[in-house]
């Protein structure tokens, strides 16, 4: 039931974002459509884990931390690009992750890509290969994952 409400709400939100400024007609049509689609997909939702309000809170926290790291990463990259001597020393590191679910792993790889100076190159089982621009500056390999693994672990497990 929880999943049903979640599907319905997110579908309706996307519908209203797409057809903003809303008229009455559009609101009613959107409600009917999202209800219909969430009834259709209920069968698939039953097999996945039910959605918790608590993980929504953690996801919002994750998003805010993510935005801050993104801005930091951009200034870092801008500094490297502008510096005339191009201070790079690329290296690839292997990092183990403790996350189990696929969505969490994908989100972790995504956020590693958008954090300062790192990019996730490949993901095999629980090993992430990380490419680092300034390889000589890395002293703690686990630190490459940033604050994201803890937050994602709380959100999905």
């Amino acid at each position, binding site marked *: 039931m929880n999943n049903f409400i979640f599907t319905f709400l997110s579908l309706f939100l996307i519908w209203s974002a797409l057809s903003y400024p809303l008229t009455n007609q559009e609101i009613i049509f959107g409600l009917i459509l999202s209800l219909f689609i969430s009834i259709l997909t209920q069968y698939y939702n039953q097999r996945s884990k039910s959605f918790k309000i608590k993980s929504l809170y953690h996801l919002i926290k994750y998003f805010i931390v993510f935005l801050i790291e*993104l801005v930091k990463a*951009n200034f870092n990259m801008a500094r490297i690009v502008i510096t005339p001597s191009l201070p790079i020393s690329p290296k690839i590191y292997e990092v183990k992750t403790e996350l189990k679910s696929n969505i969490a792993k994908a989100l972790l790889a995504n956020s590693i*890509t958008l954090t300062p100076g790192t990019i996730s*190159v490949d993901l095999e089982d629980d090993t992430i290969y990380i490419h680092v621009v300034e390889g000589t500056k890395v002293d703690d390999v686990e630190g490459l994952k940033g604050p994201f693994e803890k937050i994602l672990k709380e959100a999905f497990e």
Partner: protein
Amino acid sequence: MHYVGWFFVLVGATFSFLAGLGIFRMPDVLNQSQAGTKASTLGILALLVGFSFINPNVSPKLILMALFFLFSSPIASHTICKAALRRNKAKLILDSNPLLKEGEANE
């Protein structure tokens, strides 16, 4: 309101320019995609924020676009990097290529 919007557009344009410069200056595929993904992500986000300040009527659509971009751009760069490493096209300053198994020759 308009001035805030144009300020954000200016910031976005600057970061997009830096992304292009990064792609031009970096020596190999991996570093190029580093510069390309990061700077262009913030550049495009800032552009979208600026546009939504200028014309608030379209801002929900722009937010959806921004979310989609946040998820798709790292995936694209991830795939490009993986392909480059698998085909050994990256001119690496590395000890070894971890994605190639033993026996596959390093050219």
